[in-house]
């Protein structure tokens, strides 16, 4: 990324950040920004690493829980903030190492990641009893953990970062993570990672240790997702096992595929737009417009969106638009990879 591009993206991000609250509720926007960071992490792991992780929510939920429990024990937020990045990243590294050194791929990898998030979902749901406690923090089972200290000015636990401040904070973190991810993709590590998505065997025959690199990429994605969970926890002021649920795992996938795999901006936009769509569909008002039998049931709409996108726009919205308008801001390695990965899995099938 050139410095001109950097300045341009900062300007655009700043405009977006200040314009959005004019039209939307900041509480919602904060949540959408957290979703967008989760989508960014999945977009990176899936779109650039070629690792289709069905359970990215495992790291997201873990980040939220780590934050909540650390904040309760420390009585302040920042320790939890950093642990919420570190612990999911370590967890992802361990899980990733297990999978990649075990040569799991494609469908088996999807199963294992999905199972891990379900495992955490089930486990967190069973922790209602008083014996499940870490320090002063009860894990709370189905209830989740409400009432933990939220983010505050460093050093002053009473000066909470609230409402609009929290929105700006979350948005800026999201933007920094976006820049960081772009920088990483432009680095030699990132380029090899993209090559690896394109042809794992070739990268290996060139002498790169594929397993180590995939593990590292997975850990980076896990850290981003954990941070997203931490930001979500601050927006929602509660963490519950729902963070690990199959439904949210599905939504994250939908965000990315709708926004576009192989880009970073696409998944983020997908998350924000679909997050808002879900919110609107859940409003009483919309239900009342249609009477009791609301045909716009959120799961129904989301399901149809996913089916239609896979069938008709498998590259997602952003790469398609880029395809119409030629190259744009999104970095040199974007090159509409949704299609390309398809040819790869076709090849995998033919080989099998």
């Amino acid at each position, binding site marked *: 990324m050139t410095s001109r591009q950097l300045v341009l993206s900062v300007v655009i991000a700043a405009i977006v950040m200040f314009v959005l609250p004019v039209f939307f509720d900041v509480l919602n926007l904060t949540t959408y920004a957290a979703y967008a960071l989760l989508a960014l992490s999945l977009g990176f792991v899936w779109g650039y690493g070629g690792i289709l992780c069905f359970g990215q929510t495992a790291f997201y939920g873990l980040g939220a829980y780590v934050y909540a429990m650390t904040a309760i024990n420390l009585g302040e937020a920042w320790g939890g903030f950093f642990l919420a990045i570190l612990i999911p990243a370590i967890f992802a590294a361990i899980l990733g190492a297990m999978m990649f050194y075990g040569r799991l791929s494609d469908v088996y990898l999807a199963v294992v990641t999905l199972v891990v998030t379900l495992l955490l979902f089930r486990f967190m749901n069973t922790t209602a009893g008083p014996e499940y406690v870490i320090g002063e923090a009860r894990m709370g089972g189905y209830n989740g953990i409400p009432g933990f200290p939220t983010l505050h000015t460093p050093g002053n636990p009473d000066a909470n970062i609230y409402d609009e401040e929290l929105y700006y904070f979350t948005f800026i973190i999201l933007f920094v993570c976006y820049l960081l991810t772009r920088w990483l993709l432009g680095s030699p590590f990132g*380029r090899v990672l993209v090559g690896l998505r394109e042809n794992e065997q070739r990268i290996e025959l060139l002498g790169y*240790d594929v397993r180590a690199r995939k593990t590292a990429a997975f850990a980076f994605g896990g850290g981003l997702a954990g941070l997203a969970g931490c930001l979500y926890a601050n927006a929602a002021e509660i963490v519950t096992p729902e963070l690990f649920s199959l439904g949210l795992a599905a939504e994250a996938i939908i965000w990315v595929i709708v926004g576009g795999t192989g880009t970073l901006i696409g998944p983020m936009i997908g998350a924000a737009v679909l997050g808002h769509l879900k919110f609107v569909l859940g409003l009483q008002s919309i239900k009342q417009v249609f009477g009791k039998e609301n045909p716009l049931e959120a799961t129904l709409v989301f399901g149809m969106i996913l089916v239609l996108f896979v069938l008709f726009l498998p590259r997602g919205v952003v790469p398609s638009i880029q395809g119409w308008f030629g190259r744009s801001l999104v970095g040199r390695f974007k090159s509409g990879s949704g299609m390309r*990965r398809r040819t790869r899995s076709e090849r995998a099938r033919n080989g099998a």
Partner: protein
Amino acid sequence: MARDGVVEARGVGVRFGGVSALESVDFTLADNELRCLIGPNGAGKSTFFKCLTGMLRPTEGDIRIRGIDCVGAHPHQIAGLGVGIKTQVPSVMNGLSVRENIWIAARRLNTTRSANRIVSETLERIGIADSAGDLVGNLAHGRRQLVEFGTVLAGNPWLILLDEPAAGLTADEAERAVAVIREMNERAAIIVVEHDMHFIRQLANTVTVLHRGRILTEGYVDTVLRDPVVRDVYLGKSQ
């Protein structure tokens, strides 16, 4: 152990279940030698190639590359020794440009700056500089083969393993490939696994004939191809 070859294989055997794909193969490759491995389908060429590249672990025997025990090593470890490998199906990164493909190969042992320089040189060497910015996936088969040669070259290897480099090439492209292989041979020892007799004659060098998982004979290409036993193996496809 005396180091009398770049590649030193002793008693290599591979069994799948009860079937032997390779049996007690002894094989030596000297410095800067160019050797072709030939044989009919199912002779064990590819199996042996996979053993050399670490894609397959032999059930018995010993393989050393420059004296280093390579049995059980991963492909990236073998490649990491400075071995360039090209597989049978063109194995390139379709979603990336030609330049990017070669850059990734060059960058492994070099800094970004020298990698960029190596990329330009390599593009020239294989004569594909005009399509440097094109996506590899959009290139014709033969051009993709060349790109793969490029990725192998960019690592500046001292040993190169090529599996059926001529497969699917037009006559022109095959000639070009012969030239490239010859040129590579100036700096590196090469093993070529090949099926195409015409291509091998063009390379004109020492060949090893595999048959039913064993080494049938070794020698200069013309001599070997005149050998009636070899002709039987190739023509009498009864087995």
